[in-house]
């Protein structure tokens, strides 16, 4: 377990010291969200109605762009080979790297989402719910994304392929993320959708590392 946390800490330090990566994802998030009113017109009522959807989709796209960071550089400089021959199983390595990706990308994006909600005239009541749902949903984004990142680590045209492979897997996260936000203002409350969203994240945290490690093992041989 110590080596697991050491690996997480290493990835966090790399992300901080390399810089750029987190900022790029946040900047992309900002630009996509601010393009929306330009395309849809500045009608504030319309914007506030579609705000949760726009924020979620922009968040998914921003996270998608950073997914290849999970394994690519470590694969290229041979660190993954060292990790694969090391003591901790490759599944845990994949889990640690996905967790680090969530901390460096998922959490900042989730925290930025309400700020961008101002641009879209999102109701103030929805802010805490928006943060809660994005925080509960982004682990699924990172852990499912790790599968795609591992599958395409060696592929040509990795980026576009990654999107094609991973985006269909994000459908449940997107649906329940948005329905939790919009249900919160309705009579039934956000309870059920939010719990299912959390369940998807937990399931992804189990499935993701298993599949990602299997994919890495094939390519490291």
């Amino acid at each position, binding site marked *: 377990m110590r080596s697991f946390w050491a690996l997480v800490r290493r990835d966090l330090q790399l992300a901080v010291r390399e810089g750029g990566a987190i900022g790029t994802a946040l900047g992309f998030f900002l630009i996509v969200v601010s393009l929306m009113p330009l395309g849809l017109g500045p009608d504030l009522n319309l914007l506030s109605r579609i705000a949760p959807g726009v924020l979620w989709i922009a968040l998914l796209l921003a996270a998608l762009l950073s997914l290849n960071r999970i394994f690519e550089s470590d694969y290229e400089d041979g660190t993954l080979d060292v990790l694969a021959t090391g003591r901790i199983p490759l599944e845990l390595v994949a889990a640690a790297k996905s967790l680090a990706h969530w901390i460096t990308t998922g959490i900042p994006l989730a925290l930025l989402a309400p700020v961008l909600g101002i641009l879209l005239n999102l109701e103030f009541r929805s802010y805490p719910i928006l943060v809660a749902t994005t925080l509960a949903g982004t682990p699924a984004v990172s852990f499912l994304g790790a*599968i795609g990142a591992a*599958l*395409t680590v*060696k*592929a*040509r*045209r*990795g980026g576009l*392929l990654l999107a*094609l*492979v991973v*985006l*269909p*897997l994000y*459908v*449940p996260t997107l*649906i*329940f993320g948005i*329905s939790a936000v919009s249900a919160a203002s309705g009579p039934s409350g956000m309870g059920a959708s939010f719990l*299912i969203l959390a369940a*998807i994240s937990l*399931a992804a945290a189990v*499935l993701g590392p298993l*599949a990602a490690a*299997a*994919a890495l093992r*094939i*390519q490291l041989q």
Partner: protein
Amino acid sequence: MQTLTQQLANPTRFMELSSRVLPWASVIAAALIAYGLYLALLESPADYQQGETVRIMYIHVPCAWLSMMIYGLIALSSFGLLVFRHPLADVSAKAAAPIGAAFTFLALLTGSLWGKPMWGTYWVWDARLTSVLILFFLYLGLIALRAALDDESAAAKLTAILALVGVTILPIIKFSVNWWNTLHQPSTDFTSTVDPSMRWPLLVMAIGFTILFFAMHLKAMRNEVIRRRVKAMRTQAVAGRDRLAAQAAG
């Protein structure tokens, strides 16, 4: 004592057996579909509500059924490849993916053509349509992932992993998409709600399409096996020429 699957997994025996089965399967599929089309287009009655457009159903439902069955077959083949390392399992998965994508596309297309006169629109974001569309995307992902990797054996295993991940996630996608269930009718219980005059042609068409798929699948698998043999022979030939050249130089 070899099991049946082990015997079938031998490529030589597969080629031998499939060459004998294939003509029969093709003929039976053609005959069934011809008979089914006759029943569907001429013999069966028009629907009292939908009129003649109900006949789209006889193409649409078999395609939709195949789109799911083929993904199941790919998942089974992928499992066979990853667990038992059958070389033919990969051939099967590879051959089935484009056919499956084609049938899924046909299901979407015929459904959309049927939707225009019935629902007044070609496309709605309804649960059933959306989940079939996502199934189509999964097929595209499988094909694209395989196409993007140079190393064939790695490509085979990685695609198999993606197919299995897809199969575990499909029920969740289906269930989540069902939350905004709107226009498409729920699955029909064919034994009770479909009139016998329509049930019979539909059944003939479904069986005909399924056999058609198996014929196409066998043919595609045979092509793939032959393609791999040619590739192996070419590699050998090049290696042999290199050896000769080395001897001549040395």
